[in-house]
Protein backbone atom coordinates (compact mmCIF):
# COMPACT_ATOMS: atom_id res chain seq x y z
CA UNK A 1 0.00 0.00 0.00
CA UNK A 2 1.21 3.46 -0.87
CA UNK A 3 2.13 6.00 1.77
CA UNK A 4 -0.30 8.52 0.35
CA UNK A 5 -3.33 7.81 -1.76
CA UNK A 6 -5.40 10.74 -2.98
CA UNK A 7 -8.68 9.86 -4.69
CA UNK A 8 -10.83 12.27 -6.72
CA UNK A 9 -9.95 15.26 -4.58
CA UNK A 10 -12.07 18.28 -5.56
CA UNK A 11 -12.95 21.63 -4.10
CA UNK A 12 -15.27 24.43 -5.15
CA UNK A 13 -15.09 28.00 -3.91
CA UNK A 14 -18.57 29.41 -4.38
CA UNK A 15 -19.05 27.84 -7.80
CA UNK A 16 -15.44 28.16 -8.88
CA UNK A 17 -13.98 24.69 -9.32
CA UNK A 18 -10.49 25.26 -8.00
CA UNK A 19 -9.40 21.62 -8.14
CA UNK A 20 -11.24 18.80 -9.88
CA UNK A 21 -10.68 15.07 -9.41
CA UNK A 22 -7.08 15.20 -8.33
CA UNK A 23 -5.60 11.71 -8.03
CA UNK A 24 -2.17 10.82 -6.78
CA UNK A 25 -0.60 7.80 -5.20
CA UNK A 26 2.86 8.07 -3.65
CA UNK A 27 5.10 5.22 -2.57
CA UNK A 28 7.40 5.64 0.40
CA UNK A 29 10.57 7.52 -0.54
CA UNK A 30 9.16 8.97 -3.75
CA UNK A 31 9.82 12.54 -4.82
CA UNK A 32 6.95 13.95 -6.85
CA UNK A 33 6.49 17.43 -8.27
CA UNK A 34 3.35 19.41 -9.10
CA UNK A 35 3.68 22.14 -11.70
CA UNK A 36 1.22 24.38 -13.44
CA UNK A 37 0.54 28.02 -14.26
CA UNK A 38 -0.42 30.50 -11.54
CA UNK A 39 -3.84 29.82 -10.13
CA UNK A 40 -3.87 26.24 -11.37
CA UNK A 41 -4.76 24.97 -7.89
CA UNK A 42 -1.40 23.65 -6.70
CA UNK A 43 -1.36 25.32 -3.30
CA UNK A 44 -5.04 24.47 -2.93
CA UNK A 45 -4.09 20.79 -3.14
CA UNK A 46 -1.58 21.35 -0.33
CA UNK A 47 -4.19 23.18 1.72
CA UNK A 48 -6.57 20.26 1.36
CA UNK A 49 -3.83 17.76 2.23
CA UNK A 50 -2.97 19.67 5.41
CA UNK A 51 -6.55 20.27 6.51
CA UNK A 52 -6.60 24.03 5.95
CA UNK A 53 -9.38 23.61 3.40
CA UNK A 54 -11.98 20.92 3.52
CA UNK A 55 -12.41 19.28 0.12
CA UNK A 56 -15.86 19.25 -1.45
CA UNK A 57 -15.31 15.69 -2.59
CA UNK A 58 -12.67 12.96 -2.45
CA UNK A 59 -10.46 11.07 -0.05
CA UNK A 60 -6.91 11.33 1.21
CA UNK A 61 -5.50 8.15 2.67
CA UNK A 62 -2.29 8.20 4.64
CA UNK A 63 -0.40 5.20 5.92
CA UNK A 64 0.63 5.83 9.50
CA UNK A 65 3.78 4.63 11.18
CA UNK A 66 2.00 1.53 12.50
CA UNK A 67 0.80 0.76 8.94
CA UNK A 68 -2.81 1.62 9.74
CA UNK A 69 -4.59 3.77 7.16
CA UNK A 70 -6.33 7.05 8.01
CA UNK A 71 -8.47 9.32 5.91
CA UNK A 72 -7.19 12.86 6.36
CA UNK A 73 -10.37 14.52 5.06
CA UNK A 74 -12.08 16.38 7.91
CA UNK A 75 -9.04 16.20 10.19
CA UNK A 76 -7.68 19.40 11.72
CA UNK A 77 -4.35 20.75 10.48
CA UNK A 78 -2.57 20.08 13.77
CA UNK A 79 -3.74 16.45 13.85
CA UNK A 80 -2.51 15.93 10.31
CA UNK A 81 0.90 17.31 11.27
CA UNK A 82 0.99 15.00 14.27
CA UNK A 83 0.23 12.10 11.93
CA UNK A 84 3.39 12.83 10.01
CA UNK A 85 2.62 15.38 7.29
CA UNK A 86 4.68 18.58 7.42
CA UNK A 87 4.68 21.55 5.08
CA UNK A 88 6.39 24.78 4.21
CA UNK A 89 4.55 27.82 2.91
CA UNK A 90 4.77 29.64 -0.38
CA UNK A 91 5.24 32.97 1.37
CA UNK A 92 7.34 32.01 4.39
CA UNK A 93 5.33 31.89 7.61
CA UNK A 94 7.86 31.83 10.42
CA UNK A 95 7.03 32.91 13.95
CA UNK A 96 8.54 36.26 13.11
CA UNK A 97 9.16 37.76 16.53
CA UNK A 98 10.52 34.58 18.09
CA UNK A 99 14.10 33.40 17.99
CA UNK A 100 15.37 30.82 15.53
CA UNK A 101 15.68 28.27 18.33
CA UNK A 102 12.15 28.93 19.62
CA UNK A 103 10.80 28.45 16.09
CA UNK A 104 12.27 24.97 15.98
CA UNK A 105 11.33 24.11 19.57
CA UNK A 106 7.68 24.83 18.80
CA UNK A 107 7.77 22.06 16.23
CA UNK A 108 8.80 19.67 19.01
CA UNK A 109 5.81 20.75 21.03
CA UNK A 110 3.54 17.77 20.49
CA UNK A 111 6.29 15.27 21.31
CA UNK A 112 6.91 16.84 24.74
CA UNK A 113 6.02 14.42 27.50
CA UNK A 114 4.78 16.89 30.08
CA UNK A 115 1.76 19.14 30.28
CA UNK A 116 0.71 22.41 31.84
CA UNK A 117 1.04 20.92 35.33
CA UNK A 118 4.57 19.74 34.67
CA UNK A 119 5.48 23.14 33.28
CA UNK A 120 4.08 25.10 36.22
CA UNK A 121 5.49 22.78 38.90
CA UNK A 122 8.80 22.25 37.08
CA UNK A 123 8.71 18.47 37.50
CA UNK A 124 11.73 16.31 36.61
CA UNK A 125 9.93 15.42 33.36
CA UNK A 126 9.97 19.11 32.48
CA UNK A 127 13.72 19.41 32.81
CA UNK A 128 14.37 16.14 31.02
CA UNK A 129 12.11 16.98 28.11
CA UNK A 130 13.28 20.58 27.83
CA UNK A 131 16.84 19.33 27.64
CA UNK A 132 15.90 16.81 24.97
CA UNK A 133 13.95 19.37 22.93
CA UNK A 134 16.80 21.84 23.27
CA UNK A 135 19.37 19.28 22.12
CA UNK A 136 17.32 18.00 19.23
CA UNK A 137 16.49 21.49 18.01
CA UNK A 138 20.14 22.49 18.17
CA UNK A 139 21.16 19.34 16.36
CA UNK A 140 18.85 20.13 13.46
CA UNK A 141 19.98 23.75 13.35
CA UNK A 142 23.59 22.56 13.27
CA UNK A 143 22.90 20.24 10.34
CA UNK A 144 21.49 23.14 8.37
CA UNK A 145 24.17 25.61 9.39
CA UNK A 146 21.92 27.80 11.48
CA UNK A 147 23.37 27.00 14.89
CA UNK A 148 25.16 30.31 15.27
CA UNK A 149 21.88 32.07 14.44
CA UNK A 150 19.90 30.34 17.17
CA UNK A 151 19.28 33.45 19.30
CA UNK A 152 18.51 35.70 16.36
CA UNK A 153 14.92 36.95 15.97
CA UNK A 154 13.78 35.01 12.94
CA UNK A 155 12.44 37.97 10.96
CA UNK A 156 15.95 39.44 11.00
CA UNK A 157 17.43 36.50 9.08
CA UNK A 158 18.30 36.96 5.42
CA UNK A 159 15.71 35.55 3.03
CA UNK A 160 17.58 32.36 2.16
CA UNK A 161 18.11 31.48 5.81
CA UNK A 162 14.45 32.13 6.55
CA UNK A 163 13.54 29.56 3.90
CA UNK A 164 16.01 27.12 5.40
CA UNK A 165 14.65 27.71 8.89
CA UNK A 166 11.16 27.00 7.68
CA UNK A 167 12.41 23.70 6.32
CA UNK A 168 14.19 22.90 9.59
CA UNK A 169 11.01 23.68 11.46
CA UNK A 170 9.01 21.34 9.24
CA UNK A 171 11.58 18.57 9.67
CA UNK A 172 11.50 19.01 13.45
CA UNK A 173 7.93 17.69 13.50
CA UNK A 174 9.54 14.40 12.29
CA UNK A 175 7.30 13.95 9.26
CA UNK A 176 7.06 11.02 6.90
CA UNK A 177 5.57 13.12 4.13
CA UNK A 178 6.99 16.56 3.45
CA UNK A 179 5.13 19.12 1.34
CA UNK A 180 7.29 21.90 -0.06
CA UNK A 181 5.46 24.90 -1.54
CA UNK A 182 7.78 26.65 -4.00
CA UNK A 183 10.99 26.09 -2.07
CA UNK A 184 13.06 27.83 -4.76
CA UNK A 185 10.98 31.02 -4.91
CA UNK A 186 13.19 34.09 -4.88
CA UNK A 187 16.47 32.18 -5.06
CA UNK A 188 19.39 32.86 -7.39
CA UNK A 189 20.85 30.12 -9.60
CA UNK A 190 23.55 29.12 -7.13
CA UNK A 191 21.06 28.90 -4.26
CA UNK A 192 18.78 26.83 -6.49
CA UNK A 193 21.62 24.39 -7.15
CA UNK A 194 22.26 24.05 -3.42
CA UNK A 195 18.56 23.62 -2.79
CA UNK A 196 18.32 20.73 -5.24
CA UNK A 197 21.22 19.03 -3.50
CA UNK A 198 19.56 19.59 -0.17
CA UNK A 199 16.17 18.24 -1.21
CA UNK A 200 17.74 14.98 -2.40
CA UNK A 201 19.89 14.80 0.69
CA UNK A 202 17.12 15.33 3.24
CA UNK A 203 14.98 12.74 1.52
CA UNK A 204 17.64 10.10 2.08
CA UNK A 205 18.85 11.35 5.43
CA UNK A 206 15.38 11.69 7.00
CA UNK A 207 13.74 8.89 4.98
CA UNK A 208 11.11 11.19 3.63
CA UNK A 209 8.54 11.12 0.91
CA UNK A 210 8.43 14.54 -0.70
CA UNK A 211 5.75 16.31 -2.70
CA UNK A 212 6.78 19.67 -4.04
CA UNK A 213 5.24 22.56 -5.92
CA UNK A 214 7.65 24.56 -8.00
CA UNK A 215 7.77 27.15 -10.75
CA UNK A 216 11.42 26.66 -11.61
CA UNK A 217 11.38 23.96 -14.25
CA UNK A 218 15.05 23.24 -13.62
CA UNK A 219 14.32 22.17 -10.05
CA UNK A 220 11.33 20.03 -10.89
CA UNK A 221 12.94 18.37 -13.89
CA UNK A 222 16.14 17.57 -12.02
CA UNK A 223 14.82 16.54 -8.65
CA UNK A 224 11.47 14.88 -9.18
CA UNK A 225 10.97 11.34 -10.34
CA UNK A 226 7.41 11.97 -11.34
CA UNK A 227 5.57 15.14 -12.26
CA UNK A 228 1.91 16.14 -12.35
CA UNK A 229 0.75 19.12 -14.35
CA UNK A 230 -2.29 21.09 -13.19
CA UNK A 231 -4.16 23.62 -15.25
CA UNK A 232 -7.40 25.26 -14.13
CA UNK A 233 -7.68 22.62 -11.41
CA UNK A 234 -7.46 19.70 -13.81
CA UNK A 235 -4.59 17.24 -14.02
CA UNK A 236 -3.63 17.60 -17.69
CA UNK A 237 -0.59 15.35 -17.66
CA UNK A 238 1.59 13.19 -15.50
CA UNK A 239 4.72 11.14 -15.96
CA UNK A 240 8.48 11.25 -15.72
CA UNK A 241 10.29 14.51 -16.51
CA UNK A 242 11.11 13.41 -20.07
CA UNK A 243 7.48 12.72 -20.90
CA UNK A 244 6.31 15.99 -19.40
CA UNK A 245 8.86 18.02 -21.34
CA UNK A 246 7.54 16.75 -24.64
CA UNK A 247 3.83 16.62 -23.81
CA UNK A 248 2.01 19.01 -26.19
CA UNK A 249 -0.75 19.75 -23.67
CA UNK A 250 1.81 20.95 -21.15
CA UNK A 251 3.55 23.10 -23.70
CA UNK A 252 0.23 24.61 -24.64
CA UNK A 253 -0.70 25.33 -21.04
CA UNK A 254 2.56 27.13 -20.51
CA UNK A 255 2.43 28.92 -23.89
CA UNK A 256 5.96 27.94 -24.65
CA UNK A 257 7.35 28.77 -21.23
CA UNK A 258 8.52 25.19 -20.80
CA UNK A 259 10.60 25.22 -23.94
CA UNK A 260 12.33 28.41 -22.95
CA UNK A 261 12.90 27.37 -19.36
CA UNK A 262 13.89 23.74 -19.69
Amino acid sequence: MALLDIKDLSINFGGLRAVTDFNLSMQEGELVGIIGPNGAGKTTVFNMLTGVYRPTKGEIFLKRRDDSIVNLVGKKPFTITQMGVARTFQNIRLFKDLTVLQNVKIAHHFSAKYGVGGAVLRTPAYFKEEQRIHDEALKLLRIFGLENRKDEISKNLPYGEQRRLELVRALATSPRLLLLDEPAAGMNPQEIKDLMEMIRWIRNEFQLTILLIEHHMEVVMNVCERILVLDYGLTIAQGCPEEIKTNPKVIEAYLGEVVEDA
Partner: protein
Amino acid sequence: MTRTKSLLKVPVVMVALALLYLGLIAGFSHNPYYMQILNMAAINTIMAVSLNLINGFTGQFSIGHAGFMGVGAYVAAVCSVFYKIPYLVALLCGALAAAVVGLVVGIPTLRLKGDYLAIATLGFAEIIRVIIVNIQKVGGPRGFLGIPPYTNLLWTYLFAVGTVVVISNFVNSSPGRACLAVREDEVAAESMGVNATKYKVIAFVMGAFFAGLGGGLLVHLLSIAHPTMFTFLKSVDFLIMIVVGGQGSITGSVTAASFITVISEALRKFEVWRMLAYSLVLIMIMLTRPQGLLGGKELTWEGIVNVPGRLRRFRLPKVGGGRVGTTGH
Protein backbone atom coordinates in the same frame (compact mmCIF):
# COMPACT_ATOMS: atom_id res chain seq x y z
CA MET B 1 22.89 31.60 27.52
CA THR B 2 23.00 28.47 29.62
CA ARG B 3 19.84 26.98 30.96
CA THR B 4 20.70 27.50 34.61
CA LYS B 5 21.24 31.16 33.94
CA SER B 6 17.93 31.59 32.15
CA LEU B 7 16.14 29.76 34.94
CA LEU B 8 17.67 32.07 37.47
CA LYS B 9 16.46 35.16 35.67
CA VAL B 10 12.91 35.28 37.00
CA PRO B 11 13.79 34.48 40.66
CA VAL B 12 16.40 37.22 40.57
CA VAL B 13 13.85 39.76 39.45
CA MET B 14 11.48 38.47 42.10
CA VAL B 15 14.06 38.86 44.83
CA ALA B 16 14.77 42.38 43.68
CA LEU B 17 11.08 43.24 43.82
CA ALA B 18 10.68 41.49 47.16
CA LEU B 19 13.37 43.69 48.63
CA LEU B 20 11.72 46.75 47.17
CA TYR B 21 8.40 45.78 48.72
CA LEU B 22 9.91 44.98 52.10
CA GLY B 23 11.64 48.34 52.05
CA LEU B 24 8.38 50.04 51.25
CA ILE B 25 6.58 48.16 54.03
CA ALA B 26 9.24 49.16 56.51
CA GLY B 27 8.89 52.74 55.37
CA PHE B 28 5.13 53.01 55.30
CA SER B 29 3.79 50.42 57.70
CA HIS B 30 2.57 53.08 60.11
CA ASN B 31 0.38 54.59 57.41
CA PRO B 32 -2.73 52.59 56.48
CA TYR B 33 -3.22 54.66 53.32
CA TYR B 34 0.16 53.66 51.93
CA MET B 35 -0.43 50.08 53.02
CA GLN B 36 -3.63 50.13 51.00
CA ILE B 37 -1.76 51.36 47.92
CA LEU B 38 0.83 48.60 48.31
CA ASN B 39 -1.93 46.03 48.60
CA MET B 40 -3.59 47.43 45.47
CA ALA B 41 -0.27 47.32 43.64
CA ALA B 42 0.11 43.63 44.44
CA ILE B 43 -3.47 42.82 43.38
CA ASN B 44 -3.07 44.82 40.19
CA THR B 45 0.14 42.89 39.52
CA ILE B 46 -1.88 39.67 39.64
CA MET B 47 -4.43 41.20 37.26
CA ALA B 48 -1.91 42.60 34.81
CA VAL B 49 0.28 39.50 34.63
CA SER B 50 -2.71 37.23 34.11
CA LEU B 51 -4.17 39.52 31.42
CA ASN B 52 -0.78 39.56 29.76
CA LEU B 53 -0.89 35.79 29.47
CA ILE B 54 -4.06 36.13 27.37
CA ASN B 55 -3.32 39.30 25.41
CA GLY B 56 0.43 39.55 25.34
CA PHE B 57 1.58 35.95 25.16
CA THR B 58 -1.29 34.29 23.35
CA GLY B 59 -2.35 37.26 21.23
CA GLN B 60 -6.06 37.13 22.09
CA PHE B 61 -7.84 40.38 22.83
CA SER B 62 -9.72 40.08 26.12
CA ILE B 63 -11.24 43.28 27.47
CA GLY B 64 -13.42 41.78 30.18
CA HIS B 65 -10.76 40.98 32.75
CA ALA B 66 -12.61 42.93 35.43
CA GLY B 67 -15.61 40.67 34.82
CA PHE B 68 -13.61 37.61 35.88
CA MET B 69 -12.34 39.59 38.82
CA GLY B 70 -15.97 40.25 39.74
CA VAL B 71 -16.91 36.57 39.54
CA GLY B 72 -14.01 35.65 41.82
CA ALA B 73 -14.81 38.51 44.16
CA TYR B 74 -18.48 37.68 44.65
CA VAL B 75 -18.01 33.92 44.86
CA ALA B 76 -15.21 34.27 47.41
CA ALA B 77 -17.28 36.76 49.39
CA VAL B 78 -20.31 34.47 49.40
CA CYS B 79 -18.10 31.60 50.59
CA SER B 80 -16.72 33.62 53.49
CA VAL B 81 -19.88 35.43 54.54
CA PHE B 82 -22.61 32.84 54.08
CA TYR B 83 -20.75 29.57 54.41
CA LYS B 84 -17.94 30.63 56.75
CA ILE B 85 -15.45 28.81 54.57
CA PRO B 86 -11.80 29.48 55.53
CA TYR B 87 -10.23 32.44 53.74
CA LEU B 88 -7.79 30.59 51.49
CA VAL B 89 -10.39 28.04 50.44
CA ALA B 90 -12.82 30.86 49.71
CA LEU B 91 -10.22 32.54 47.51
CA LEU B 92 -9.67 29.25 45.71
CA CYS B 93 -13.42 28.84 45.17
CA GLY B 94 -13.59 32.33 43.69
CA ALA B 95 -10.66 31.66 41.37
CA LEU B 96 -12.10 28.31 40.26
CA ALA B 97 -15.50 29.87 39.61
CA ALA B 98 -13.86 32.52 37.43
CA ALA B 99 -11.96 29.78 35.59
CA VAL B 100 -15.17 27.86 34.92
CA VAL B 101 -16.84 31.00 33.60
CA GLY B 102 -13.71 31.55 31.49
CA LEU B 103 -14.17 28.09 30.03
CA VAL B 104 -17.83 28.78 29.20
CA VAL B 105 -17.02 32.08 27.50
CA GLY B 106 -13.81 30.83 25.92
CA ILE B 107 -14.88 27.63 24.22
CA PRO B 108 -17.47 29.09 21.85
CA THR B 109 -15.45 32.22 21.04
CA LEU B 110 -11.87 31.00 20.89
CA ARG B 111 -12.44 28.30 18.31
CA LEU B 112 -13.27 31.11 15.87
CA LYS B 113 -10.61 33.10 14.13
CA GLY B 114 -10.90 36.84 14.45
CA ASP B 115 -11.76 39.26 17.19
CA TYR B 116 -14.95 37.82 18.61
CA LEU B 117 -13.26 37.39 21.98
CA ALA B 118 -13.08 41.15 22.44
CA ILE B 119 -16.82 41.61 22.13
CA ALA B 120 -17.67 38.38 23.94
CA THR B 121 -15.54 39.28 26.97
CA LEU B 122 -16.99 42.76 27.05
CA GLY B 123 -20.51 41.41 26.77
CA PHE B 124 -19.88 38.76 29.35
CA ALA B 125 -18.66 41.36 31.85
CA GLU B 126 -21.92 43.22 31.26
CA ILE B 127 -23.99 40.06 31.82
CA ILE B 128 -22.13 39.41 35.07
CA ARG B 129 -22.92 42.94 36.21
CA VAL B 130 -26.61 42.50 35.37
CA ILE B 131 -26.73 39.19 37.23
CA ILE B 132 -25.06 40.64 40.32
CA VAL B 133 -27.40 43.63 40.36
CA ASN B 134 -30.34 41.24 40.28
CA ILE B 135 -29.26 39.05 43.19
CA GLN B 136 -30.61 40.68 46.31
CA LYS B 137 -28.85 38.24 48.60
CA VAL B 138 -25.49 39.73 47.72
CA GLY B 139 -26.78 43.25 48.01
CA GLY B 140 -27.79 43.79 44.40
CA PRO B 141 -27.05 47.35 43.25
CA ARG B 142 -26.28 48.46 46.81
CA GLY B 143 -23.17 46.29 47.06
CA PHE B 144 -22.17 43.41 49.30
CA LEU B 145 -21.12 44.63 52.73
CA GLY B 146 -19.55 43.00 55.73
CA ILE B 147 -16.94 40.83 54.05
CA PRO B 148 -14.32 39.89 56.65
CA PRO B 149 -11.09 41.85 56.09
CA TYR B 150 -8.75 38.87 55.95
CA THR B 151 -6.50 40.17 53.19
CA ASN B 152 -3.26 41.78 54.26
CA LEU B 153 0.01 42.63 52.64
CA LEU B 154 1.45 39.21 53.34
CA TRP B 155 -1.27 37.48 51.36
CA THR B 156 -1.45 39.94 48.47
CA TYR B 157 2.28 39.81 48.08
CA LEU B 158 2.53 36.02 48.38
CA PHE B 159 -0.20 35.58 45.78
CA ALA B 160 1.38 38.14 43.49
CA VAL B 161 4.68 36.24 43.63
CA GLY B 162 2.85 32.95 43.16
CA THR B 163 1.04 34.29 40.09
CA VAL B 164 4.26 35.57 38.57
CA VAL B 165 6.05 32.26 39.20
CA VAL B 166 3.22 30.12 37.80
CA ILE B 167 2.72 32.24 34.70
CA SER B 168 6.41 32.67 33.94
CA ASN B 169 6.97 28.93 34.40
CA PHE B 170 4.10 28.34 32.03
CA VAL B 171 5.28 30.68 29.29
CA ASN B 172 8.80 29.27 29.48
CA SER B 173 7.68 25.78 28.63
CA SER B 174 6.46 23.77 25.70
CA PRO B 175 2.77 24.62 26.23
CA GLY B 176 3.80 28.26 26.71
CA ARG B 177 5.71 28.23 23.44
CA ALA B 178 2.60 26.82 21.79
CA CYS B 179 0.76 29.93 23.00
CA LEU B 180 3.47 32.17 21.56
CA ALA B 181 3.19 30.32 18.25
CA VAL B 182 -0.56 30.93 18.19
CA ARG B 183 0.04 34.62 18.81
CA GLU B 184 2.57 34.84 16.00
CA ASP B 185 0.69 32.94 13.31
CA GLU B 186 -2.23 30.65 13.95
CA VAL B 187 -2.03 28.86 10.60
CA ALA B 188 1.69 28.20 10.93
CA ALA B 189 1.21 27.07 14.54
CA GLU B 190 -1.37 24.49 13.46
CA SER B 191 0.98 23.32 10.74
CA MET B 192 3.53 22.68 13.50
CA GLY B 193 1.08 20.38 15.26
CA VAL B 194 -0.15 22.96 17.77
CA ASN B 195 -3.85 22.71 18.64
CA ALA B 196 -4.48 26.46 18.54
CA THR B 197 -7.95 26.41 20.10
CA LYS B 198 -6.73 24.28 23.00
CA TYR B 199 -3.91 26.62 23.91
CA LYS B 200 -6.04 29.71 23.51
CA VAL B 201 -8.54 28.18 25.93
CA ILE B 202 -5.80 27.12 28.36
CA ALA B 203 -4.31 30.60 28.44
CA PHE B 204 -7.72 32.23 28.72
CA VAL B 205 -8.86 29.97 31.56
CA MET B 206 -5.58 30.41 33.43
CA GLY B 207 -5.91 34.17 33.04
CA ALA B 208 -9.49 34.03 34.32
CA PHE B 209 -8.42 31.91 37.29
CA PHE B 210 -5.89 34.46 38.47
CA ALA B 211 -8.27 37.34 37.80
CA GLY B 212 -10.78 35.57 40.07
CA LEU B 213 -8.08 35.22 42.69
CA GLY B 214 -7.37 38.93 42.43
CA GLY B 215 -11.06 39.67 42.90
CA GLY B 216 -11.25 37.52 46.04
CA LEU B 217 -8.21 39.26 47.50
CA LEU B 218 -9.66 42.67 46.69
CA VAL B 219 -13.03 42.26 48.38
CA HIS B 220 -11.45 40.74 51.47
CA LEU B 221 -9.19 43.76 51.57
CA LEU B 222 -11.91 46.40 51.19
CA SER B 223 -14.63 44.46 53.08
CA ILE B 224 -17.07 45.38 50.35
CA ALA B 225 -17.97 44.16 46.89
CA HIS B 226 -19.89 46.44 44.56
CA PRO B 227 -20.99 45.91 40.95
CA THR B 228 -19.34 49.20 39.92
CA MET B 229 -15.94 47.89 41.02
CA PHE B 230 -15.81 45.50 38.07
CA THR B 231 -16.84 47.59 35.10
CA PHE B 232 -15.40 47.96 31.65
CA LEU B 233 -13.30 50.94 32.77
CA LYS B 234 -11.60 48.71 35.32
CA SER B 235 -10.71 46.29 32.52
CA VAL B 236 -9.25 49.22 30.63
CA ASP B 237 -6.99 49.97 33.61
CA PHE B 238 -5.51 46.49 33.38
CA LEU B 239 -5.15 46.81 29.63
CA ILE B 240 -3.20 50.03 30.06
CA MET B 241 -0.88 48.28 32.50
CA ILE B 242 0.08 45.61 30.00
CA VAL B 243 0.36 48.07 27.14
CA VAL B 244 2.70 50.31 29.13
CA GLY B 245 4.60 47.33 30.51
CA GLY B 246 4.83 45.58 27.17
CA GLN B 247 2.66 42.83 25.78
CA GLY B 248 4.50 39.62 26.49
CA SER B 249 6.74 40.95 29.25
CA ILE B 250 6.04 39.68 32.78
CA THR B 251 8.52 41.94 34.49
CA GLY B 252 7.10 44.82 32.46
CA SER B 253 3.58 44.05 33.70
CA VAL B 254 4.77 43.87 37.30
CA THR B 255 6.51 47.20 37.02
CA ALA B 256 3.69 48.91 35.14
CA ALA B 257 1.02 47.56 37.51
CA SER B 258 2.82 49.02 40.51
CA PHE B 259 3.61 52.27 38.74
CA ILE B 260 0.09 52.83 37.42
CA THR B 261 -1.48 51.97 40.77
CA VAL B 262 0.50 54.78 42.35
CA ILE B 263 -0.17 57.23 39.49
CA SER B 264 -3.90 56.47 39.51
CA GLU B 265 -3.98 57.07 43.25
CA ALA B 266 -2.19 60.37 42.84
CA LEU B 267 -4.61 61.45 40.09
CA ARG B 268 -7.71 60.28 41.89
CA LYS B 269 -9.06 63.83 42.08
CA PHE B 270 -8.63 64.36 38.35
CA GLU B 271 -10.52 61.32 37.12
CA VAL B 272 -11.50 62.70 33.71
CA TRP B 273 -8.06 64.10 33.02
CA ARG B 274 -6.59 60.77 34.04
CA MET B 275 -8.76 58.91 31.54
CA LEU B 276 -7.94 61.46 28.85
CA ALA B 277 -4.24 61.04 29.54
CA TYR B 278 -4.52 57.22 29.64
CA SER B 279 -6.33 57.09 26.34
CA LEU B 280 -3.76 59.33 24.69
CA VAL B 281 -0.92 57.26 26.15
CA LEU B 282 -2.61 54.13 24.83
CA ILE B 283 -2.94 55.56 21.32
CA MET B 284 0.55 57.05 21.30
CA ILE B 285 2.24 53.84 22.46
CA MET B 286 0.36 51.82 19.85
CA LEU B 287 1.28 54.23 17.08
CA THR B 288 4.95 54.37 18.00
CA ARG B 289 5.63 50.97 19.61
CA PRO B 290 2.78 48.55 18.87
CA GLN B 291 4.39 45.86 21.03
CA GLY B 292 4.09 48.08 24.10
CA LEU B 293 6.84 50.05 25.78
CA LEU B 294 9.04 47.07 26.64
CA GLY B 295 7.82 44.88 23.80
CA GLY B 296 8.29 41.22 24.59
CA LYS B 297 11.46 41.89 26.54
CA GLU B 298 12.05 41.05 30.15
CA LEU B 299 13.94 43.19 32.59
CA THR B 300 16.78 41.03 33.79
CA TRP B 301 19.34 41.34 36.49
CA GLU B 302 22.12 41.48 33.89
CA GLY B 303 20.11 44.10 32.05
CA ILE B 304 19.80 46.31 35.11
CA VAL B 305 23.44 45.87 36.08
CA ASN B 306 24.53 46.58 32.52
CA VAL B 307 22.67 49.85 32.15
CA PRO B 308 25.83 52.00 32.42
CA GLY B 309 27.56 49.83 29.84
CA ARG B 310 24.59 49.99 27.56
CA LEU B 311 24.38 53.75 27.83
CA ARG B 312 28.05 53.97 26.91
CA ARG B 313 27.54 51.73 23.93
CA PHE B 314 24.60 53.77 22.73
CA ARG B 315 26.92 56.57 21.72
CA LEU B 316 28.88 54.35 19.40
CA PRO B 317 27.30 53.75 16.05
CA LYS B 318 26.54 50.28 14.75
CA VAL B 319 26.67 48.41 18.05
CA GLY B 320 24.11 46.38 19.83
CA GLY B 321 20.93 46.76 17.85
CA GLY B 322 19.20 47.67 21.10
CA ARG B 323 19.00 44.10 22.34
CA VAL B 324 21.96 44.27 24.69
CA GLY B 325 21.09 43.49 28.26
CA THR B 326 17.46 42.81 27.65
CA THR B 327 16.81 39.30 26.52
CA GLY B 328 13.83 37.44 25.20
CA HIS B 329 12.76 34.58 27.35
